[in-house]
């Protein structure tokens, strides 16, 4: 491809609008006099609903409707869909749009009020009286496993699914290995926290019997299908439009949320537009969380650290319901392998119910947990053998000549886990250089001389990106020569209007400014999947490329006819088709005029077109196999995912007195194949690293034993500020193209967040000299760990903390002495 813009740092066309406050989000949509909805949410983690009294609400002026489960009929009275069933998800459960008989987490929707404004709607909520019978809550993985109490009466052991995959015979290999060790690891909950929460606006047009829905989603087509099915409408009666979305990070791929159904239902029932805008507290307690797992790892290896057998067992907390199936733990169990090729691998997980907010994918989607398990294992092996941590990794790498590499496992898309391309040894060399790995011991000594304590960590990951099944695109060249592009997946800040325009401008030889991209509007592209799993660039980028090629082919065919030249002699550049080596050319806009036999001379392009004669006067104006208009439409559907990869390294300083953790250097080597726009890719990395810093050092969901979320606000949920993330991130790219798509690209959206827990645990462990096995970690927890590991315990810690405290009873395999190694 002759490219000009592909691979260059084109400024994002979106930024002027966003930075000047001109973004248009769902809450900005006002289709006429609009009513406002609010939701009564359960204050209890586990309770039976005996009765709901809404009588007092009816007296409140300005209330238009108050609904509970009993007001729902037909499909709306059925449980919400389980989007992605799996044979091992033997006990999948989903909630109702409004709770039926029982609530299973604090925040579960119980009643829905529509009123003149949100103030009145919230007044009405406080007038609803619910009679609860309390049930014992199940909070945390330990309580779920103990199964003293059950979340759902009909789910024994709180186990939603048990899944096992094995390649080879891991247990036998471990039994025969010269060295073995075990680790027990713990990782806590966090959540997506987009700046814009969930939100939905709907308008019903009774004259045309059509519903228009604006919703803050990662899949407009998915919401459209759900709304149509639940409201008993045909797809053709429902338009779903996704305006600007203020971040998704995964939480908005789960759908339909109760409000995404209740708002359209209310709009149709009440005959007025209805809006719901989630507030931040609601986002904490009713939108999805992720991450929490407990992991047990057994590994056998040789003298070089080569893994002979890896046996991983983990317990995944999926909260109260499983609308998104097993995607997160399946990804953990498969992507755990990273760039390595253990000779034998077995993984078993249980996906467990708890009386907490449900778990669906959050940027990284199970990979951060898998990376944490694998990379902590690599560090433990290196420590046991007294080897450099990079050497142990290097001997386990899949080599560049081994691609495509088959792991002998089944991936999240139900297809074999096969890596398409990569060069892990090259990445390792780059990251070592970038972070100064080989010079670090000297740096450590210099810092120690000043009384300062530093540590370095490294973590590697491989990320399956661009999952199918398909994405499509429509490219329309207008008679003005401008190009309108539509693709059906949504945009929640990724810069699609820029990156996709780069692809089109290159393919069609038009100015970048003349390309306009629309995403997430089912009126423009009714078949689409969505923006998640780092798939937009790979899937829609490829589809747009293919669609632009089709438009180009047609343009050249028409131009060849008009210019009486052969297609092979034509080139498309600067908005014109030119006979190569001559001055003979025709504007692309004029070609667009020629493509349509209905040719009123409205404009200059049409007048110009009259000088050209196209087509055979003896045949129909539009040939049998042709269409009017200069358009191209195509779909891209790859046989399998493409695997991006990368390595992060961090140098931290831990304060000897206050246990504060400071980031001195953060380095990233990133390989997502060919880069469409390096600035956007680096922006994705920056954002991912920032989110990863949050997940590793600041954020957690602090549930108490009764299932109350104690930190459901940004005051106590410590999402990092700009002041907490590294001022600069050193980035180096490797470009190993994917053979699976025409542009050689791989996804880049999630990579930045994947290695965070692993890399920070490694660096802090390196600084402190004792194992770090529970993440995230706070200064307070690090301080407690120091006391626990101090050679002489000076004073007894007063209260147990999660990571450790001195009087907490533990056996040798507990979290703070996780590594038991044996040598034969």
């Amino acid at each position, binding site marked *: 491809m002759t490219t000009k813009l592909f691979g260059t740092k084109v400024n994002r066309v979106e930024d002027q609008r966003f930075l000047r406050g001109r973004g248009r989000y769902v809450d900005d949509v006002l289709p006429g006099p609009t009513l406002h909805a609010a939701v009564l949410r359960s204050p209890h983690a586990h309770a039976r609903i005996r009765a709901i009294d809404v009588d007092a609400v009816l007296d409140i002026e300005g209330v238009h409707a108050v609904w509970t489960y009993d007001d729902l009929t037909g499909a709306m009275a059925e449980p919400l869909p389980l989007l992605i069933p799996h044979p091992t998800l033997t006990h999948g459960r989903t909630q109702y749009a409004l709770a039926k008989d029982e609530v299973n987490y604090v925040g579960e929707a119980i009643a829905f009020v529509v009123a003149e404004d949100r103030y009145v709607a919230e007044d009405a909520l*406080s007038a609803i009286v619910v009679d609860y019978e309390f049930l014992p809550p199940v909070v945390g993985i330990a309580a779920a496993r103990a199964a003293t109490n059950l979340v759902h009466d009909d789910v024994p052991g709180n186990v939603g699914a048990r899944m096992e995959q094995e390649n080879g015979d891991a247990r036998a290999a471990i039994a025969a290995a010269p060295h073995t060790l075990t680790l027990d690891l713990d990782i806590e909950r966090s959540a997506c926290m987009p700046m814009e929460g969930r939100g939905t606006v709907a308008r019903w047009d009774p004259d045309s019997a059509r519903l228009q829905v604006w919703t803050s989603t990662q899949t407009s087509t998915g919401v459209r299908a759900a709304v149509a099915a639940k409201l008993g409408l045909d797809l053709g009666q429902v338009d779903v439009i996704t305006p600007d979305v203020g971040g998704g990070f995964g939480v908005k791929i789960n759908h339909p949320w109760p409000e995404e159904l209740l708002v359209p239902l209310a709009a149709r029932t009440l005959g007025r537009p209805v809006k719901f805008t989630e507030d931040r*507290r609601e986002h904490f307690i009713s939108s999805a969380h992720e991450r929490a797992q407990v992991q047990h790892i057994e590994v056998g290896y040789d003298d070089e650290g080569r893994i002979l057998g890896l046996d991983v067992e983990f317990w995944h907390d999926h909260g109260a319901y499983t609308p998104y199936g097993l995607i997160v733990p399946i990804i953990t169990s498969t992507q755990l392998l990273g760039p390595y090729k253990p000779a034998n691998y077995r993984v078993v997980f249980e996906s467990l119910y708890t009386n907490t907010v449900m778990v669906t994918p959050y940027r990284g989607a199970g990979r951060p947990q898998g990376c944490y398990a694998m990379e902590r294992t690599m560090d433990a092996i290196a420590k046991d053998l007294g080897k450099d941590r990079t050497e142990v990794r290097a001997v386990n790498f899949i080599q560049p000549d081994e691609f495509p590499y088959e792991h002998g496992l089944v991936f999240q898309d139900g297809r074999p886990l096969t890596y398409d391309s990569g060069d892990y040894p090259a990445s390792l060399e780059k990251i070592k250089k970038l972070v100064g790995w080989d010079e670090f011991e000297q740096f450590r000594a210099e810092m120690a001389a000043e009384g300062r304590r530093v540590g370095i960590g490294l973590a590697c990951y491989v990320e399956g990106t661009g999952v199918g099944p398909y994405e499509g695109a429509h490219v329309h060249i207008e008679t003005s020569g401008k190009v309108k592009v539509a693709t059906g997946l949504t945009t929640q800040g990724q810069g699609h209007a820029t990156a996709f325009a780069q692809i089109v401008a290159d393919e069609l030889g038009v100015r970048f400014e003349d390309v306009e991209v629309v995403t997430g509007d089912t009126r423009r592209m009714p078949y689409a999947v969505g923006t998640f799993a780092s798939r937009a660039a790979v899937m829609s980028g490829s589809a747009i490329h293919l669609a632009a090629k089709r438009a180009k082919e047609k343009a050249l065919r028409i131009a060849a006819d008009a210019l009486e030249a052969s297609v092979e002699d034509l080139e498309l550049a600067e908005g014109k088709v030119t006979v190569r080596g001559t001055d003979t050319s025709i504007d692309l806009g004029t070609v667009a005029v020629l493509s349509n036999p209905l040719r009123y001379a409205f404009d200059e392009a049409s007048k110009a077109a009259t000088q050209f004669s196209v087509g055979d006067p003896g045949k129909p104006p539009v040939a049998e196999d042709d269409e009017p208009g200069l358009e191209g439409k195509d779909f891209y559907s790859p046989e399998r995912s493409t695997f991006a990869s990368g390595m992060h390294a961090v140098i931290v300083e831990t304060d000897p007195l*206050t246990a504060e953790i400071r980031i001195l250097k953060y380095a990233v080597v990133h390989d997502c194949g060919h880069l469409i726009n390096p600035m956007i890719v680096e922006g994705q990395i920056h954002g991912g690293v920032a989110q990863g810093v949050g997940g590793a050092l*600041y954020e957690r969901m602090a549930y108490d034993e009764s299932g109350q979320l104690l*930190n459901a606000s940004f*005051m106590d949920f410590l999402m990092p500020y700009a002041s907490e993330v590294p001022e600069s991130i050193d980035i180096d790219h490797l470009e190993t193209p994917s053979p699976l798509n025409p542009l050689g690209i791989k996804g880049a959206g999630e990579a930045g967040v994947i290695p965070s827990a692993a890399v920070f645990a490694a660096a802090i462990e390196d600084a402190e000299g004792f194992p770090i096995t529970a993440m995230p970690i706070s200064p307070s927890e690090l301080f407690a760990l120091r006391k626990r590991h101090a050679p002489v315990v000076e004073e007894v810690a*007063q*209260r147990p903390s999660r990571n450790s*405290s001195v009087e907490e009873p533990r056996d040798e395999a507990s979290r703070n002495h996780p590594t038991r190694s044996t040598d034969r």
Partner: protein
Amino acid sequence: MKPAPFAYVRPGTLEEALEALAADPGAKVLAGGQSLVPLLSMRLAAPSRLVDINGLPDLDRVRTDADGVRLGALARHADVLADADAGRVQPLLPLALANVAHATIRNRGTTVGSLVHADAAAEMPVVLRLLGGSVDVASVRGRRTIAADDLFAGPLESTLDHDEIAVEAFFPALAAGAGVGFEEIARRHGDYALCGVAALVERDGDRVTVARAGYLSVCDVPTVVDLTPALDDGLDDATLDAAADLALDALEPADDIHATADYRAQLARVLTARVLRAAYDHAGSRRAA
């Protein structure tokens, strides 16, 4: 997150404001709103009436003379922080104010409002107490001055009566030969501190004649401890440690989701030593200058 219904008045004179407040036992005063408005939005507070004092004349003044700094009820944290005269006469003001939340909150939040909100995790109440300042309050019944030591009744509870408005706070000037220090440690920049310490040291040569420290987030009310006895033998690692021991006897750090009591005690220990040393050095530098 929308407040429950409330009545709203925005009087043009202090007298009207005091009458409005006295007339409604459920009324609350709105100044900067940085604590009150979130409480309203989360429906954790539901006053029947807000008496907005932002329209009152002259209350936004910062007046500084040799005795000290007087802040009107509408002086924003940012105004005080930017006031060079105030910072010169009482250097602890800017030292502490720079730690009050974030710039956007300081632009709107008032220092006097923070004092009477009486949050033991806030910076300015403990600064007022450390410096021996006071607050002037007014009501339809008249005016009175409340000394800082008498201002804090309990967690988030001041000794103002319901019908009283704090109209002015007084922070005494820093005496010659005295120095101050302030440091806090928060999980994130601008957050409520896990622990914060303000110190005031007076010297006679190398001898410490007065050493007092004020603590935030490690006690239920803003707490000031006299550490002079620990520094009788001068100021070194051992005496600073003894000073921290003395302070910890008076403090009650507690566990929460961000830190254990044990860790907070450690921070109090570390920060006590740091700010006492800083205040000692500050006193020395002022004397030299």
